[in-house]
């Protein structure tokens, strides 16, 4: 249907136009930038996926959306289990060197799902973001650097898992990609925790809006958060 001709209600006189242009110019000079809208945006995610990984990636993404739908409002235990399984099943563990050609690349969930492969931190990040998306409070989720002993050998490896803290001083539940089931931390004798972090406190006032910091790229964690934001996760 052709749109009826509608004279613009914002017809500006020349003077008004000049004043507006001048104000914008001045504003730009003074560093008042409009902040880009940042929120969960399925449409943008689809576009990003389509562009980067084509139809196969899109299929995984659709499954992810379906899971989100299914788990929304369910109890936390079920959400943890389903999300843990989803990523453990969908993503094959590969070293970063193989996938990304660099020592330690932190992939966004979209990149991990698109590739179908990932490193331990890629699992943790994907689970972290998905659970947050399902409404699990951010402060209960922490990414934990652990020292892992492989099998019964004495070989140890740097590893990362996602911990779920029902209260700040509780013992966490561990979401891992080596052991497929979720277990309380005390039962994971193969893991020695070292340090933990999450995205709380990274952003001023706990808001999920980035301050459009050009330095974000220089930090791995901040970098991946930035990328997720641009892809439409948060």
């Amino acid at each position, binding site marked *: 249907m052709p749109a009826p001709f509608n004279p613009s209600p914002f017809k500006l006189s020349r003077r008004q136009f000049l004043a507006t242009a001048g104000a914008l110019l*001045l504003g730009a*000079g*003074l*560093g008042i930038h409009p902040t880009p809208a940042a929120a969960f945006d399925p449409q943008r995610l689809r576009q990003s996926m389509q562009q980067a990984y084509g139809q196969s990636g899109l299929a995984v993404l659709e499954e992810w959306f379906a899971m989100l739908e299914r788990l929304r409002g369910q109890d936390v235990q079920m959400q943890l289990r389903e999300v843990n399984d989803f990523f453990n099943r969908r993503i094959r563990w590969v070293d970063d060197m193989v996938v990304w050609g660099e020592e330690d690349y932190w992939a966004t969930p979209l990149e991990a799902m698109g590739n179908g492969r990932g490193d331990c931190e890629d699992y943790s990040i994907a689970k972290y973001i998905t659970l947050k998306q399902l409404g699990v409070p951010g402060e209960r989720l*922490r990414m*934990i650097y652990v020292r892992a002993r492989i099998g019964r050998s004495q070989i140890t490896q740097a590893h990362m898992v996602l*911990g779920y*803290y029902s*209260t*700040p*001083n*509780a*013992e*966490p539940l561990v979401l891992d990609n080596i052991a497929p089931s979720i277990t309380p*931390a*005390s039962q994971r004798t193969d893991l020695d*925790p*070292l*340090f*933990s*972090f999450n995205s*709380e*406190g*990274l952003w*001023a*006032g706990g808001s999920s809006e980035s301050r459009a*910091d050009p*330095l974000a790229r220089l930090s791995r964690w901040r970098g991946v958060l930035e990328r997720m934001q641009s892809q439409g996760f948060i």
Partner: protein
Amino acid sequence: MSLGTQSSEKKSLGTMSLIKQLWLAIIVLLLLSFIGSLAVSITSSRDYIEQEVRIKNSDNATALALSMSQLDKDTVILELLVAAQFDTGYYRRITLRDTDNSVLIERSAESYQGSVPQWFRQLIDFDVPSGVATVQDGWRQFGTLELESQHSFAYDALWRSTLELAGWFLLAGAISLALAMAIVRGIQRPLNRVVAQAQDISAQRFTTISEPRTLELRYLAQAMNQLSANVRQMLNSESQKLDELRRRLQHDPVTDALSRDVFMGRLSALLESDEARASGLMIMVRVSELDKLNERLGHQATDHLLRTLVMQLAALDTTSEAPLIGRLNGSDFALLLPLADDVEALKTALQQALNNTAALANDVGLPAAITPYSANDQRGLLLAALDDALAEAESDSAYHRIVIRHHQRHALFNTHAEWRRALDNAIIQGPQLAYFPVVDAQNQVLHYECPARLALGEQWQTAGVFIPWVTRFELEPRLDLAVVKAALAQLEDNSEQRLGINLSIASITNAQFVTELRSLLEGAPILAAKLCFEVPATLNASALSGLRGLCNTLRPLGCQFGIEHVGADFTKLADLHDVGLSYLKIDSSLIRGLDTSHEQQTIVRGMATLCHSLGIQVIAEGVTEPQELMYAFLSGMDGVTGPGVRL
């Protein structure tokens, strides 16, 4: 500093002068760039500092939390760790809270104040979040570490750089204002010239100016100069047309001498007038047996002879532009030499002129007669005397004999020394002013003509008596100054009416006279505005430039300027277009018999039209009859004067 015109202060912003707008624009531009760059510099510095401090907060919090996570969670050890970090680093606060958010360890310091004013602090107001990291105890969280760096020093640094920037801008502002002043001055001077020219033109003074260097102003000046030139050209061609018409009507077609009626009219007007030219010498020359000469030489040669005679006679009058030569009948020619009085010198010159003419053919008889004339002589008697003398000359055998008929003239003084003494005394005693009203069509007085009278021989004498002697002794500037003083004295008693004063050509070309006149008038500016200065129409080039200079000098005082005794042969109107004259007085020779002569009416009307196009009033002189007065106004005169004018 005064910018623009003086009246512009009263004007609203809407009619602000160009120069003022220019200043305003420059100042606004300077302020804008200052404020803009200050804001940009402060904002970007602030952003940079905030970013740095944020990174430091975050990194240090993480590093400290990482160290703590590795240690035993012994309070002393943790406190030592926090103290060590706090004491050796630049921190405002380090807090360790347990998982219930209660403070375990805290170290804090006062923020540094420095010399930064409070308003600046509030304006900048760094917003840096504290760094937060969680301390881990095995799988469990032990607590949260919050860390804030000391960033007050940044206010100090920012304040100093702002001051420096402001200093620079003051300097740059001063320099650019100085530059702007130079530029504005450069525009203002030619602009003022152009404005003055525009005002001149609107006052119908068609002046020209030198072209300014600024391109736009140059175009403007060129256009206005062109306008002035066009007006001048138009006036030139119009007055030439008028002159041609006059020649056709008033001159003898063969010799270009005046026709009899016109000459007689001029002579009568001269004799009846009250001024200097009312006395002088008159010559009459007869070409004997013109018919026979005509038969003998043929028409062409005879005409050539007559023309030569007229030219030779005209050359005798060295003072006026248009010599008064008339062809009274076929063979008689008359020449008037106003102001001349040396009969013997004239006789010699005339003899030479006649010899030159007679040399053109054989046997040409050119008898001549000379007689002085003076004011109030009867025209008839004068001509009769000349006829008589001519008859005597003709009867003589000599071919060109000159007979001098001395007039029985009453002489006031006998020697030059006596005249000189008498004139000096009379000027010192001061002249008396006569009053002749000049009225417009409603019989309202425009001004009074005030010819001077001098006390000579215990009587007040008119100009005709003393002017030749004043001229001879070059006393004109002194006399004219004395007349102006007398007029000012008159105005002090009664400043109701304008007074018209005659200035001689010798005076207006005299620099000292102009200076003295100016200082005299500047001493009485209110009275000076009531004066009209009149100069005779016998203006040569230097007199013209003198008049122009005098006008420019005295116009600011409100004085008016006019030219008197303007005859039909006056072709200088085009040269007067930029002088700023108030009026022109048409000589009585053109006015006498105006009611009966169609030709005169045509000429007078043409002159009036031309003058009106320059904003100059036209006044008829020497009106005697009511009919003349009526026709003068019908012919476009703005005013009349003469014996026929009654208040």
